[in-house]
């Protein structure tokens, strides 16, 4: 009996050691220029975790709301098997990246509400508002920022349940976007976009 308890205890000990816990974000700056190409201040009071290479933030649970910070390498296949064409236009990138959500059945009935090009810290960036139905049958609303760099596209996406939760976390997300500091301005040469950072 003691052996069995020892076995269970040790197995639990072993397994919990393999799991990265959620940490409370205290507004520190993520400075991973090699991966994201930028530094950004994380929203205070949100819980954060690194899932594979993706940094995720949430305050009320991943199925209700999350902010995702990730990078997609140009040459690599996306999780839906597609690759981003070499001469893609900036406004076409968000749809291709969002296609991952649809193909993985995380999002159904994806509707892109608006798509525009703005400047973030002097560099062109596509901003996309979208809606979808989640795998938990919730009507979701999201905003996605895509900034192309030499090696990869940095994707910052805020998604939340549309009626009750979107507005609650929206301000924190916008505050986070305002703190973006692109130190490494190695912008990707895209058709139709001036290469020089302003």
């Amino acid at each position, binding site marked *: 009996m003691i052996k069995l308890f020892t076995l269970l205890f040790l*197995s639990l000990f*072993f397994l919990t050691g393999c799991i990265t816990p959620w940490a409370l974000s205290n507004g520190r700056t993520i400075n991973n220029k090699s991966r994201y190409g930028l530094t950004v201040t994380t929203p205070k009071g949100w819980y954060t975790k690194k899932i594979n290479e993706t940094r995720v933030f949430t305050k009320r649970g991943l199925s209700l709301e999350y902010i995702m910070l990730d990078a997609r390498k140009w040459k690599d296949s996306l999780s839906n098997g597609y690759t981003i064409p070499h001469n893609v*236009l900036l406004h076409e990138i968000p749809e291709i990246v969002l296609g991952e959500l649809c193909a993985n059945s995380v999002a159904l009935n994806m509707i892109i509400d608006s798509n525009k*090009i703005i400047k973030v810290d002097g560099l062109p960036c596509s901003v996309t508002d979208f809606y979808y139905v989640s795998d938990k049958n919730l009507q979701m609303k999201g905003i996605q920022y895509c900034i192309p760099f030499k090696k990869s596209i940095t994707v910052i996406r805020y998604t939340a349940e549309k009626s009750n939760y979107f507005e609650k976390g929206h301000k924190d997300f916008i505050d986070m976007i305002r703190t973006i500091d692109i130190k490494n301005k190695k912008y990707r040469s895209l058709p*139709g*976009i001036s290469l020089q950072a302003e």
Partner: protein
Amino acid sequence: MIGIYKNFRKNIFAVTLLSIICESAIAENEIVLNKHDLAIIDKRVHESFEYSGLICNDNNLENAIYKVLQSITRSDDVKYQIKLLNNSDLNAFSLSDGTIYISIAMLGLIDNEAQLAYLLAHEMSHIELDHHRKFKYELHEQTLKATKNQIVASLFGVIISAYDQFKIPLAGFSRLQEYETDSLALEKIVKSGYNGWDASELFLSMFNWMEHKEKKIDVKYATHPQFKYRYEKCKIILKNLQPDPGRSIKGEFTYHSLMQPYYNVISNLLLSTNAVRELYWMLNLKMTKSTNVSEWHYLRGKIFELYHPVDSFSTGIDNLNKSAESTLLSAKSYRETGYFYLKNNMMDSAHFYLKKYLDLDRDASDASIVKYYLGQKND
């Protein structure tokens, strides 16, 4: 501490052994559901599709399909209902309450009425053979791995919601059940006067479709048997069932003429999901130029613009120019022509066509993007 280290290998071995036991316990299994559970599952599936907005309400198409269904059913025990899904995946499935869901893309792939009858008969056979209730499932490599990990984890209290993980294998019937259904479906349609040989070629079309898919599903992860094996099996059954493979097709309507307007819808669905190879295949085989010349040219131009801009530049531009001849499509054709030139760094031509687009559609939702590119040109 030394004790822990000494026992470490033993413990790892014990955990591995436990997971193997779990594996063997669930690798082949049968779930028998009661009517109440089935009703709940059906209700949830209906609600989920209604909510997702994927349901395509088209009485004309639904009625035509229902007529074929009536011609192969002899039982009034089940009240069948057809529901169409606005989905670019090849899919058809049934629920125990008699509802048959078919994706629009699946209808696009079908060549004739016999194949449609076969598809319906297959789903009806699942219901008649009570597969929804006596649910045999196989755990294939991927689901097995996922389930095993979650079971081991849930045993140790790390993940409590094991139910969510257990539903993974509930995604499809077993391959044996699929073969059983294929045989019964063939029998049904042959008895109803359809040509089984024509019908079985649906598997060949599905095989070709999968070959053209950009992202292929690994055979070992598939819940259904491979299409080529199903086709071979059908041929064996048909040698006894319908020895004369005559090409007469029973059909009150011509399937192609019914479907022609929908090939357009399917093609646009494929385009919206970036399924460009499938779209190319659909345009070449199904959506004939005679149906909607401008739309056909537009979609072809769009394919070349998206994925072959350098090699097929002139063909793509030519197609887009031809589609611009249609008043309905001229604005977006100009826009795509502009983008095509932009991608090939021909800024003056790009500027010319993008301006033309804005002149035609000043309130376009993407006007700000076009203006951005025009502004870049002026820089």
